[in-house]
């Protein structure tokens, strides 16, 4: 089996590869959202502490 045949997937290439591409997007989304959310939360927590320090 050569690369060309492999990408063609017996004529179903568009269906197979779009499914796998969407899977990759969903898996990446689930990985990146918690990373960005963590940065946001750490920033919020530190602002919150700073405010508390100022008040006390």
């Amino acid at each position, binding site marked *: 089996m050569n690369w060309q045949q*492999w990408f063609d997937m017996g004529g179903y290439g568009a269906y197979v590869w779009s499914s796998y591409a969407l899977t990759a997007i969903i898996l990446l989304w689930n990985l990146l959202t918690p990373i960005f959310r963590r940065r946001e*939360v*750490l920033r919020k*927590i530190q602002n919150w502490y700073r405010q508390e320090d100022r008040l006390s």
Partner: protein
Amino acid sequence: MWAFLHKLASPKHFYRITGRWIPWLWVITLLFMVPGLYLGLWVAPPDYQQGDSFRIMYVHVPAAWMSLFIYVFMAVTGGIGLIWNMKMADIMAASSAPIGASFTFLALVTGAIWGKPMWGTWWVWDARLTSELILLFLYLGYIALQAAIEEPRTAARAAAILAIVGSVNIPIIHYSVEWWNTLHQGPTVTRMDKPAIHPSMLWPLLLMAAAFQVYFFTVLLMRARTELLWRERRARWVREMFGNSTRTPFSNTEKVVT
């Protein structure tokens, strides 16, 4: 074992212990996923009826399994939080919802992409497809309900009740292909006798299913740890870890201003 679980229920220990697990969980995910993809996309022979389009199964079926598993996980952890008032259980339930919704969406769309060449249509209103769509709405309803209530305890309680009531849909999805005459095919792997699938085609499926399972727990822990920090921001251990703001890299810009 119980002592260990008890320790995990404490936010501080949960945060510390799971932080050490995450890199290893990624390694395990890849150890399942890389051979799964190689066997599924390259080694397994084309199906005699479906040709190469059956390879969509290797992402569609694990995604569909996970959509059910995560829902049950969410209802059970939500129930534990409801009965025993456990903060960690609440956080687990809330963190699993968006992941479950994304897997349900993935199962529905890859199913449609498979349906087009095989059935000649993207979508039919048969029992399996419709009940899976309802599952997506249950997840979205759960997320919306949780977001609509400010106070975390009340939000967790209300959402847990929704999750438990909605779990009636899970057996309906599972048995839909047996109870009704659906266009969707019946189970091939979980049959009581022998799986009606050749080992060379079954192995990649099992590897991908295992990969998705470990992946779920990995991203779940990542979400849960962050959510935990936010809810525990008043606790001393969080403050000791992330307080002392002038020395953390996140306040570099602020330092210039003040």
